[in-house]
């Protein structure tokens, strides 16, 4: 299936917005493993995912055409 990836803050410097063709990945925990191997810089970093504009708090199922945001720690204010 195909998902859309967006990223923010310092992560946006090495992961550009893109469509990803993934297979065998059904949940966000699997996706994290996949992302960290595809983008090795990510593995040492603190980050959170948001799935379709919802922050991922626990392992969530991913569907075709979902949007996943990769977000480093927030620093507003």
């Amino acid at each position: 299936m195909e998902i859309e990836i967006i990223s923010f803050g310092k992560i946006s410097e090495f992961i550009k917005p893109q469509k990803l063709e993934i297979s065998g990945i059904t949940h966000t925990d699997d996706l994290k493993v996949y992302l960290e191997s595809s983008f090795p810089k990510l593995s040492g970093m603190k980050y959170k995912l948001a799935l379709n504009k919802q922050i991922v708090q626990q392992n969530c199922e991913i569907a075709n055409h979902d949007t996943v945001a990769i977000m480093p720690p927030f620093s507003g204010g």
Partner: protein
Amino acid sequence: MSEKKIKNIFVAGPIDPAFIADSIAKHGSKTAIGGHSIFMGQVRRDEVDGKLVDAIAYTAYEELALEKMHQIREDIFEKYPLNCMHVYHSLGTVKAGQICLFVFTSSAHRKPAIDACSELVERLKAELPIWGKELFDNDTHQWKENI
């Protein structure tokens, strides 16, 4: 479920003190209010390894931030007897000495306004997907992290 009215909190560039004055003045007609509490974040000219911060460039995951802010707003209104609550955050470039965050709460007596304001600031910093990139005077940068 009731219809949600998602309010925008983002303003382009720094928050002008005149805008804050306007916001205060508008509350003059709300004569049930006895106390206002305000917090403002200002960009510091920090020194990092000999370089000085000229400005911070803010970006956000806007839709998620506004959704989250809506929840926070509802939580705070439920917890404290407030008459008003206003939150504004800059996007884009804010120079050192300029204001990037403006939180404004009002209540009949002082305590709820003060407590709600400080709780809001903590929650905004922890929960809103906003990122600050510190721009140094030698054209390098560093991504800010809230502690």
